[in-house]
């Protein structure tokens, strides 16, 4: 009897019992909430797609006409420097025609990773929108990259030439104004955009999914 009482397993019956209870509680939580979390993750990017391609006006028009945009998400992998890089790309289809692309990309900023969405026109040579999903740049300086004033400079820039952030004010068509005091953050955004577009343009053009 004494031996039985001192057995570790018996002593720990409460731990085992609680583990079972909590385990089933967590399984329940997982079952109920995980579809919602997944949906949140997808919606975070998906919800931005129409505006990035069509602009605010375009979205209003779409809503007015009662049309909807069909969005094909897919992952494209390219090989670069012997490393496989994968991008999430959204192809938007309106009335059976490709109306644009959105690329999700990320790169190093001044402080931490910058994650952004780039909207492109159907022939992939003009930027139709830019949205910063995540950034941790210096508040008051670098975090202005998320502001509309900075982002809208990218709209309708030609992607044939790399976009350059200019400290002294944009002069040529492929230049944008860098944020005062946050040149590095501004340049990071440009370089993320440039790299992503450069990496994907040809492969997207080559193997487009046929619009259904």
């Amino acid at each position, binding site marked *: 009897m004494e031996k039985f009482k001192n057995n570790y397993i018996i002593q720990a019956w409460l731990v085992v019992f609680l583990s079972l209870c909590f385990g089933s509680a967590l399984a329940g*939580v997982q079952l109920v909430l995980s579809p919602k979390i997944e949906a*949140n993750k997808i919606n975070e990017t998906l919800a931005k797609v129409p505006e990035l391609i069509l602009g605010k006006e375009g979205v209003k028009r779409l809503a007015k006409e009662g049309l909807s945009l069909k969005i094909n998400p897919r992952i494209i992998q390219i090989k670069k420097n012997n490393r496989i890089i994968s991008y999430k790309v959204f192809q938007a289809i309106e009335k059976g025609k490709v109306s644009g692309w959105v690329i999700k990309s990320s790169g190093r900023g001044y402080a931490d990773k910058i994650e952004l969405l780039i909207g492109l026109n159907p022939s992939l040579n003009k930027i139709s929108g830019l949205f910063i999903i995540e950034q941790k740049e210096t*508040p008051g300086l670098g975090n202005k990259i998320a502001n509309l004033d900075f982002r809208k400079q990218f709209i309708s820039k030609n992607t044939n030439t790399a976009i350059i952030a200019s400290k002294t004010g944009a002069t040529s068509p492929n230049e944008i104004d860098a944020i005062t005091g946050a040149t590095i953050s501004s340049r990071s955004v440009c370089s993320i955009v440039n790299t992503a577009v450069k990496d994907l343009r040809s492969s997207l053009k080559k193997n487009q999914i046929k619009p259904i």
Partner: protein
Amino acid sequence: MAQDPTSFERFIQGIIPENPVYRQLLGLCPTLAVTNNMKAAMTMAGAVAFVLFGANIVISLIRNLLKPHLRIVIFTLTIATFVTIVDRFLAAYMYSMSKALGPYIPLIIVNCIIIARCEVCASKQSVITAGADAIGQSIGFGLALASIAGVREILGTGMFFGLRVMPLTWPDWVIMVLPPGAFFTLGLLLGTFNLIESKMAKNKNKG
């Protein structure tokens, strides 16, 4: 057991006399990390309140079954479960906030406030007292977070709960929303708290 504080005493103690942040210096990591704006601070306070309440109730319910050498394991297991639930809940219903708080929600597991309350109160007293204690401590923690976050958000961005309270010409003290500002604010507020307290103690002695 006779001298153990009653439910009401526990509740009151948590708010000011035994404030988790200013008096016990517990739970400092979220106190500093998420207080650069009020919204994040209040979400954090809510999450901590939920975990604290849940853990206190469960521990109090099973307090007679606890074995001394296994109690920490059970505390940790309970707390970790509640934290996981709160983390998933935030991810499902407040996705952007859960992203902003990042690792600081799971870090509630090692938040000393909760394990200390389980040890000091819940594992010894009845469910009602444990619940009252959890609520009192949560209010105290929430008030502490609010005081720090209020100062930091107003000075750092000129806003309060995302609404502008300072004139537009207010130059944002960016440092206040960055790590150094957190340390300065907590240090100075702690000093102020001590000062007020010592003055009150003096008055009491005189009277």
